[in-house]
């Protein structure tokens, strides 16, 4: 039993931290610090810098240009990135599709798509969710009917994050409408420029339009764009979902947010003293800090087992529920800390560059929008209710 990082791991952390200090553009970290929204160019810049260092595709093997990091290394990178106010990696290409192609793609698909993910030629988005499906992910209605060397795709996807920037979308489509729910699904790669595709941004409760609806109207997709076997797409989707869930704890995000919260509470005055000295606010902060200290270790326990090859079971559901609660609580406290200054909706400031002044404290503008945005954590990637069901079914065997 040893709680502490090995020397090797500590050296890795130092390496990451130093690289971030030298290479993370100030304009980017300022945007993150102030909770401003990133543009496509911002993300592309960050991906390019990471790729130059070989750190973009963290869980790919080296031979494909990946970093081949284990779970502990990825966790360290995430923590350091968050603390440095680095952007997150847009996961759809490097983190999600990449591993699926590596595991199930043809040699040709790997050779074609993987380098383009790394060099930023293709921006990928995810076509999983459909309207009306919700937590019932396998309830896929988008159809792909075979017509010679093509599939003809009709239907609609939704909640497609950053789909407005995407060149390609990987989609779950129903290729056998007669089969049972989780059978008859295939995994297609679709060029977003194909005629018949319409993207409609959805404005969310925080004023941002980070997700989209994607409509398919007789979209012709070459059969060669199918990953793996026909009607076996659910297997690949589940593989991907497992990968998606590993980072959902958000320990790095929470650690950075706690730090920002403490600094905010020390600056905001309330009743003639810093808010950090208000017993009730201090108690709320301390309570979530204690939760986070434990969560960090829970996460390390799972990550450490994963890096030794043990697959996380109900644990990842536990991490998801608790991790999302902590993140939500932290952003809720950040919103509360600012009092009335959390009220103005400064959309232009959040969208814009450095030229606009904030109303009130510079980091107040993003507090309430972030609080609202973070409500999604308990909804997407399998709602917390779905996770709870997984946890008890696993333990109860009912």
């Amino acid at each position, binding site marked *: 039993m040893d709680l502490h990082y090995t020397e090797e791991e500590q050296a890795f952390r130092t390496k990451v931290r130093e690289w971030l200090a030298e290479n993370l553009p100030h304009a980017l970290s300022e945007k993150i610090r102030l909770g401003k929204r990133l543009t496509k160019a911002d993300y592309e810049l960050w991906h390019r810098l990471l790729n130059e260092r070989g750190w973009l595709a963290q869980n790919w093997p080296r031979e494909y240009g990946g970093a081949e990091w284990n779970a502990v290394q990825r966790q360290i990178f995430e923590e350091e990135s968050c603390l440095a106010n680095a952007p997150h990696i847009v996961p759809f290409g490097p983190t999600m599709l990449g591993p699926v192609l590596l595991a199930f793609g043809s040699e040709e698909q790997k050779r074609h798509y993987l380098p383009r993910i790394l060099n930023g030629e293709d921006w990928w988005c995810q076509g999983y*969710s459909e309207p*009306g*499906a*919700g*937590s*019932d992910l396998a*309830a896929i209605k988008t159809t792909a009917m075979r017509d010679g060397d093509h599939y003809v795709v009709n239907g609609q996807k*939704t*909640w497609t994050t950053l789909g407005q920037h995407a060149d390609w979308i990987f989609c779950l489509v129903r290729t056998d409408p007669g089969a049972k729910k989780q059978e008859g699904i295939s995994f297609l790669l679709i060029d977003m420029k194909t005629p018949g595709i319409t993207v409609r941004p*959805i*404005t*969310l*409760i925080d*004023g941002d339009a980070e997700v989209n609806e994607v409509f398919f109207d007789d979209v012709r997709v070459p059969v060669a764009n199918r990953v793996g076997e026909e009607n076996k797409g659910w297997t690949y989707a589940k593989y991907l979902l497992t990968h998606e869930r590993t980072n959902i704890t958000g320990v790095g995000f929470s650690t950075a947010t706690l730090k920002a919260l403490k600094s905010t509470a020390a600056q*905001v*005055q*309330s*009743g*003639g003293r810093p*808010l950090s000295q*208000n017993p*009730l*606010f201090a108690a*709320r902060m301390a309570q979530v800090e204690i939760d986070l200290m434990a969560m960090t270790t829970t996460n390390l326990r799972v990550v450490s087992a994963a890096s030794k090859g043990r697959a996380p079971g109900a644990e990842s559901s536990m991490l998801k529920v608790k991790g999302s609660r902590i993140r*939500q609580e932290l952003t*809720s406290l950040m*919103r*509360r800390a*600012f*009092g*009335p200054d*959390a*009220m*103005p*909706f*400064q959309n232009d400031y959040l969208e814009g560059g450095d030229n606009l002044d904030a*109303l*009130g404290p510079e980091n107040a503008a993003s507090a*309430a*929008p972030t*609080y*609202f945005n973070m*409500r*999604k954590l*308990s*909804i*997407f990637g399998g*709602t*917390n*209710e779905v996770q*709870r069901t997984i946890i008890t079914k696993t333990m109860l065997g009912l």
Partner: protein
Amino acid sequence: MDFNLTEERGMLRDTLGRFLRDKYDHGLRRRLEASGQAYCPDVFEGLAELGVLGALFSEEHGGFGGSGFDLAVVFEELGRAGTLEPILPAVLAGGLIAEAGRTDLVEEIIAGTTVATLAHGEAGARYDQSHVTTSAKVDGDQIVLSGTKSHVLNGAQARLLVVSARESGAVMDEAGISLFLVPSDAIGVTITDHVNLDSTSAATVVLDSVRLDASVRIGSAGEGFELLEASIARGVTALCVEALGAMEAAKTLTLEYLKERRQFGVPIGSFQALQHRMADVLIEIEQARSAVINLAGNLHRPRLERERHVSAAKNMIGRVATLVVEECIQLHGGIAMTEEYALSHFARRLTMIDHLYGDVDHHLERFITLSAA
């Protein structure tokens, strides 16, 4: 004991409710926002005609209501509809204007021809009501006001501002604060508009040596805090009832969604885990309703009793609102996070109400202090 509305209040509630169901929906709010309008003048006029503004004032002041339960009837319906029209400012500023004896102006407010508001908040004040740095200096029979007021509700739409300013004392002293009636077009007044996250409109008001006749002072010099606190008590009552209405709206949307939305082949409302959570939401909304009734029924009581109920209700509303918002979003799932679905408005409004005039913790501490007094 009687928990029924009087016949008059019952009628006002019914006509107001009907009017708002006809006129107001999420589409209207979105159109207003898209066009950059702070509120809908037609609706505002309609509300005035229905007597909504008159119900906020006592007969003595030219209205036909003015009690806590009158506020309750009006604001529950406004909250349920999610209106953006400047009725709350009329509560916050109107009573003070009446206090100043300006029945002429009150008449205009009741008629809906003049919007008046309270310009009290300041940068750095957070929820400290006695935090006033804006200065008022007597110069002969004139008053010179200087300072900046923040988060002034409907400041850009108001023709009249009730401004708090300090004539003596230190920044957090209750003594030394006076209230002044300031026309928004007075020389030296600059008003900069912004929209809040809940689509309400607010403004920053800069007073740059605004010179007015000393008669614009409401009440005695330096003794404005008591009036201000009583007026904010009325404003908080209105806010709490509005929140209750918004909770009812959120509840209705969620109950409907639970019935209609199907997943895994059944309505999601048939899932017991969701049912039990919804039951807790319903229970807490009843608690919020009772806290609001307690406040409305004690608004005319002596200061300590009144303010204890102010803080109890605002604390309760803050807690229940967060529960309602977070649970109703979660019970819906992703759809509730889209701006085009009405719940998103109620979620934002309910959350922002906790940021107005003191949040859950502020009022809990205040309740403790008041209870010890």
